[in-house]
């Protein structure tokens, strides 16, 4: 279980961006969050939420291209 126990309205970093906790489902290690300047919510695993931003470079399979069978 994450060292962070998020509460509604808490703010954390989701990778490099700040998010606000909208709802927590602790038994499932999930949280509904929204970006600080957005109203659209999305679901994240609470273990990915951090107190500091992560600016490490990574390469997305979105730009590497995907083929479907």
């Amino acid at each position, binding site marked *: *279980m994450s060292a962070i126990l998020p509460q509604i309205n808490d703010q954390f970093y*989701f*990778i*490099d961006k700040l998010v606000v906790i909208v*709802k927590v*489902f602790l*038994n*499932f*290690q*999930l949280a*509904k969050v929204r970006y600080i300047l957005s109203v*659209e*919510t*999305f*679901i*994240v*695993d609470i*273990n*990915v939420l951090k107190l500091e931003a*992560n*600016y*490490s*470079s*990574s*390469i*997305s*399979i*979105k*730009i*590497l*291209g*995907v*083929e*479907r*069978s």
Partner: protein
Amino acid sequence: MILNYIDTPLDGKSWESLMNSCYRMKFQDEHFTEIPAVHGGDAGIEGFTRLGRVYQCYCPEREYSDDDLYGHLRTKMTTDIKKLTNLTYAKRLKDLGVPKIKEWHFVIPQYRDARIVTHAETKRQEVLMIKRADPQKYDYIDDEFIIVIKQAEDFKVEISRMVRTTVTDMKLNLAISHTSTLDWSECDSEKVNNIKRKVKAVMGDVDESDDDFIDVVGMYVDFYMKGMEIMKILRVSYPEVYEDIYVLEQAYKKQVSMKTKMNIDSSINAKLFNEILDDFQKRLEQQFTYLTLASVMELKQDLVSGWLADCSMEFRSR
């Protein structure tokens, strides 16, 4: 199904370093030579091969609109092609032993419309016009000179191999956005019912009209459907990554099945479920050091949703 991938940072220095490694791997038989910019500058290129290919990297530092992206790519290409026809840079290229330049590669993560291709052709014609005006001065440029735009996708094989073998610090990102707008009717009702039954067993006495119950079931249906899509993509486009995941999942799934079926105390379902989540996450983090943390969590929830949807994870109801 359209998957919305989560954008993660990619800075210019990391991009250049990754591409240098890709060029080294792809063009080793052409005696690829990297040009570090530390002493005397990089001569306007990052490296060259003995067959006359030179390349220049560029990575826009943030997510731009299509127009802005084109604007930045255009400006960068214009600036760098200007350097190519600058005789000061030409002397540096000759001093470095760069052979007659046949191909100038513009290496970028991606482009989204054809305008940059048109601009490359305009610049190619300009370079050849300059050369024709004074062939002696510009003898380092080939008569058949071309500009080639290379994207990350052109190096998919090299990148996935390097990332997997952790030759580079760069990690692979496959995390997607999970919004709650999924149409459940696209999911097999038997799978949805399995998810419902097991979520209920973990939550305890809960009515199916409970908001949290509806939310959690919806999340797992979403993870399940999108997770299957991700696995399909990995199987076709990144078979080695898929194989790594498949082997781990098959082995772990058996343990999960045993652990949950042997538990006769339904009051500890939530505790047991969390122990499984924690342990599986730990295993994923240990094995997939080449994936971003968000990607590891994506896999964790996608695969767990699969166990909830099929028969490998079974909780006794209270």
